[in-house]
């Protein structure tokens, strides 16, 4: 009984190897022989990035084919991937949607060491996120960051000055309130801002911007001013309440795209969505722009400084059960996906790649419907991105706990202090002591 699990797992592994038809894998590999590797993706028909990568790779490596395996979207992707990896039926290359899951896969021994290819990719914070004990276990191919989307038409209607890159959170709050009054005066039902129900909309910024804030410290005092401003905006009616957003299933796409709200804090992935929805008619056609996220204090505002924001990279890693004859191809694919060529290809479909170069910015801002003002380009290209999830054993547990704190603070009247101190007690007794 004691050995049931290892026995079951090793049997499953052996079986996969047999099924894959790769008994030894020691035979010499002909570098020009045709080889096919499998890549996990989700919602393939509406998420073109996987096909873009596969096609781009094929163009430069004619003998190598990337075959896409469709997985379920959302959190179900990880549920399926975990079961497939556990049973040894996972594809050769798979995606890590965020750093929280990277830890799961890396610590579980489900990622091949790819240090030998990362040296050629330069150095970036995203690359560094995937290093454990000096070894790299994945490479980033996307790096979204959180910015402020705003509706220029609604600002004009409410006669409020649009963002100029100098905003702190207090400026943002004041603008949302002025928008609210201004829009009401102009006979519009739109709210000043929309804060989606994600915990990131508050906690991501607080963690990235507050000096010395540390998720793993178990001290969450840094969240307080950020929550107080959110509650203030809710109470003033300048943004839909958390309860309304939850019970009425508000979507940020409709709130901003249908001009229900003048401002939206969201990740840069929304650029591609907004462009698509403008074409399909699911979003109105209005003047919009991107501004840097509001800042903690004046030291990082203005277009001569570098604003601080957050975002996890999206990474690719190799399944250690890949047959040896395919490892080289898989590594070549990772190298391509994290490199500048793939970056340009991804920018062409509105996706923000791992490294935002001038060429990438030029490509993205060349797309039809993207705003052309300098502030938008600045906000898109220049910022310090801090990871939302530090790579650690405790991150998943702490983020779950803080997600519960998030809904408790925004929907109840027990007060920010009480909920935060409860979160700190729980962090100490339930997560950090494990």
């Amino acid at each position, binding site marked *: 009984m004691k050995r049931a*699990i290892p026995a*079951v*797992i090793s*049997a*499953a592994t052996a*079986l*996969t190897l047999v*099924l894959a038809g790769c008994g030894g894998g020691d035979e010499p590999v002909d570098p020009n022989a045709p080889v096919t590797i499998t890549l996990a993706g*989700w*919602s393939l*028909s*509406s998420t073109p990035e996987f096909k873009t990568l596969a096609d781009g790779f094929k163009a430069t490596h004619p003998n190598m084919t990337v075959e896409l*395996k*469709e*997985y*379920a*979207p*959302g959190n*179900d992707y990880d*549920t*399926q991937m*975990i*079961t*497939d990896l*556990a*049973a*040894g*039926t996972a594809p050769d290359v798979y995606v890590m949607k965020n750093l929280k899951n990277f830890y799961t896969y890396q610590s579980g021994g489900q990622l091949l060491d790819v240090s030998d290819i990362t040296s050629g990719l330069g150095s970036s914070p995203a690359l560094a996120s995937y290093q454990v004990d000096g070894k790299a276990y994945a490479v980033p191919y996307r790096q979204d960051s959180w910015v402020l989307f705003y509706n220029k038409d609604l600002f004009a209607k409410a006669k409020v000055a649009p963002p100029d890159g100098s905003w702190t959170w207090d400026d943002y709050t004041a603008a949302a309130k002025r928008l609210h009054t201004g829009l009401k005066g102009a006979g519009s039902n739109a709210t000043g801002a929309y804060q989606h129900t994600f915990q990131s909309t508050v906690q991501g910024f607080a963690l990235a911007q507050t000096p010395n804030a540390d998720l793993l410290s178990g001290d969450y005092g840094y969240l307080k001013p950020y929550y107080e401003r959110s509650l203030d905006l809710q109470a003033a009616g300048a943004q839909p309440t958390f309860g*309304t957003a939850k019970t*009425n*299933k*508000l*979507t940020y*796409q*409709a709130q901003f*795209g*249908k001009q229900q709200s003048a401002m939206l804090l969201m990740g840069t992935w929304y650029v591609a969505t907004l462009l698509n*929805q403008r074409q399909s008619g*699911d979003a109105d056609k209005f003047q919009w722009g991107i501004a840097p996220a509001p800042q903690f204090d004046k030291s990082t505002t203005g277009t001569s400084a570098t604003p601080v924001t957050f975002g996890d990279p999206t990474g690719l890693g190799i399944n250690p059960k890949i047959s040896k004859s395919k490892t080289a191809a898989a590594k070549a694919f990772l190298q391509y996906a994290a490199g500048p060529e793939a970056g340009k290809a991804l920018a062409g479909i509105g996706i923000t790649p791992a490294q935002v170069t001038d060429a990438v910015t030029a490509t993205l801002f060349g797309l039809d419907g993207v705003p052309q003002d300098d502030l938008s380009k600045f906000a898109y290209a220049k910022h310090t991105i801090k990871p939302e999830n530090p790579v650690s054993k405790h991150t998943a547990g702490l983020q779950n706990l803080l997600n519960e704190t998030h809904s408790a603070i925004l929907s109840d009247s027990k007060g920010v202090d009480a909920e935060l101190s409860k979160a700190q007690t729980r962090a100490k007794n339930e997560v950090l002591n494990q």
Partner: protein
Amino acid sequence: MTATDLSLPTPAVAAPGNRNAPRRSVQSRGWRLVGYAALVLAAAGLLLPFYWMVVASLKTNSDVFTIPITWLPDRVVWRNYLDIWQRSDMTTWLGNTLLLSVVVSLLQVVTGSFAAYGFARVRFPGRNALFLAYVGTIAVPWQSYMIPQFILMSKLQLSNTLWSIVALQAFGAFGVFLMKQFYETIPEELSESARVDGLSEFGIYRRIMLPLSRPALASLALLTFVTTWNDYLGPLIYLRSPELRTIQLGLNTFISQYNAEYALIMTGSVLSVLPVAVIFLLGQRYFIEGIATTGLKG
């Protein structure tokens, strides 16, 4: 129960058909009207979300969510019902789900009722312990043992085939438990006299128990059908290939693909409910007008 316990159905069985057909008690018209009014009101409450689904499926996407809720579409949009067939693999999903639901229900009814007879009517050592093991597994949450199960199924080369879902659902303890409970309502004397007449245990099961338990068999089949039809987590874990998707899995991919297109999503949901509703509407005479009228004459 007391000495005047009426629950023992023995006398009724001893004299089937001897009495006249049941007399209907005369109800006053007033009570009947009140009853209907209550029923209509209850029906409205029960149908509300379904009604909302239908209305939402007849709206344009941007009209689905409004504050406050609108119960009538401004103008009816039938397009969604055309679009969904063009933009999704609805036919494949419905086909797969129908196939699975039918096969699973059949297997569950056959093996479940068979095993239930063993548990209800044959006495052998260890029977009660074994039965408790059956019921006990219902109490274990599936999400906690699905990974060991998945590893096992992969080893049997069943994962990513429709067989995995059949294997998953067909041998559940639910059917065994349900059928055992119903067999126990059938008087022991019936099988005793059959035994005296020289009928084997299998003969008793086939000739006596099966015909008598028709309402239970029908409800088991229906409930298994619905459970399989609506199952999401099972297909999610076991099926990967798009051509194997079931209706629930397909709808969910669809939702994420067209995340803001709630009208279309609700169109899909309405279409996924209708087959089950029709089966229920047509099939209910098998479990409502079962034993009381025909069963015992056989």
